[in-house]
């Protein structure tokens, strides 16, 4: 069993026009998905990332350059992540296919946590 990180990208403009009722629906679908994974022992965890105040550190010609961002106003921002257990990348993809983020977010990036 390996760990996989699902990185959930958002399109910040997308959520603005949902009605409270639709928001309720969206939250319920994520919860259902996460609970189903948890029941199978496949959910390790997940969290939302803060939208503001991120920093980017970069070394350039021996100097450290720190810049603000990425900004929440970008077209695609990393909004949060789930970590799941799966036997293979294929299984991780299968499990992610039913994640409501496909419908409501902008994309999911799946990366295997590397174990030597």
């Amino acid at each position, binding site marked *: 069993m390996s760990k996989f990180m699902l990185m959930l990208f*958002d399109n910040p403009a997308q*959520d*603005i026009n*949902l*009605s*409270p*009722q*639709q*928001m*309720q629906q*969206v*939250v319920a679908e*994520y*919860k259902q998905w*996460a609970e189903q994974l948890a029941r199978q022992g496949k959910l390790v965890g*997940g*969290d*939302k990332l803060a*939208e503001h105040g991120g920093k980017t550190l970069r070394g350039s010609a021996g100097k450290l350059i720190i810049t603000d961002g990425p900004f929440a106003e970008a077209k695609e921002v990393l*909004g*949060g992540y*789930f970590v799941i257990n799966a036997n293979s990348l294929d299984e991780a993809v299968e499990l992610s296919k039913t994640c409501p*983020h496909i419908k409501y977010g902008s994309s999911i990036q799946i990366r295997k946590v590397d174990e030597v």
Partner: protein
Amino acid sequence: MPEDSPSLPPDNTHAATDHVFRHEAARLRASLVRAFGARHIDLAEDVVQDALVQALKHWRFHGVPDNPGAWLLSVARRRAIDELRRDRVLERSAPGIAAWLGRPQAPRDAGLVLDDQLAMLFACAAPQLAPESRIALMLHLVAGFSVAEVARAFLLSEDAASQRILRAKRLLRDEQATIEVPDETHLPERLDAVLDTIYLMLNEGHAPGVGNDPVRLDVLEECTRLCELLLEHPRTTAPAVHAMLAMTLFTRSRTDARMDEAGVLLMLDQQPRDKWNQALIQRGFRHLALAASGTRLTRYHIEAAIASIHARATTFESTDWAELLSLYDLLVRAHPTPIVRLNRVVVIAMLHGPQAGLRALDEADLQSALANYPPFHAVRAQLFERADLLHEARAALLAALALPWPAPHQRLLTDRLANLEQRISNGNPDRP
């Protein structure tokens, strides 16, 4: 009627879907609009929307917290602090914001939350607003419906609904409407305006032919909730509110029986009465009993009593038409609108036959008032048909079909017309 006796069925009358987002948004909005003042209604709404979007983003990962209201409130407070920092002028023009921020945050005072919502309810029924603006605003600001949901409830375009809400809000803002429960001298009159608005909302929610559209059912549910809000507060609880709630509950009890599986609309005489929700009916009777106090007999009392006669009849045939007629006589005196008079004609026809109905229809002289009211022609057609005046019935049906109807009704009438024409060609071919 016994009060909450243990033999009553379990209260499964609340909706299956909970409306955490909608209702918490409504509570928060009421608190903010009241604190910020009508002048800053847009800012209050932005803060609420922002808090909701934050909630959406967090709760996706962790589910809805135990106290969603407190969660939203703390996000809204942070946002309000940011706004004050950003805009120094705001602090002077809206001293209420700083005062609101100074309120102790937790535990939330349930009484205060109720006050805020009632204040909002009265603001939405402000005398300067047109009736249709009042309902739109009430659904949006107090019930927490989005603009799109308001549009769906009224069969309006989103643009039209949004314009209606914007204009109403602008009026409240420009006139710096007070957002408070009115004082004792104005309360009765303003409470009537609130009830009138809830009544219109009930009619919209129950409009024929929209079937079991969840948004419409939600409108009916909101009518119940708004009445319950009024009943919770000692100043706004009144017999007329119990009457309105009783009427709402009786109306809601029939929603599951209004259409057959094929989506065909069923009239009162065709509805499977075992599908009427008995729990709602029982609650209706409890509130009807509570309405019977005080000295004012409002039209809501009479209409609730009328609805209760139908609710009580186990079959259409066993309906107490005589009792209904005496109630309609009362109602016509209290509230002599053409539609009330038309409904009275229907009852006369049930009690004394179609000829008597047709005579009453002539006497009521409704032709000019209701020429564009589709059910007027449908009622005439039915009376003619029952009196075996098939050609007159056909003419009336054609007049009815010339007016716009919701699709399920249209189908029903088209079927009736075909049936009628069949009878005409079988029975009486020589008549012109």
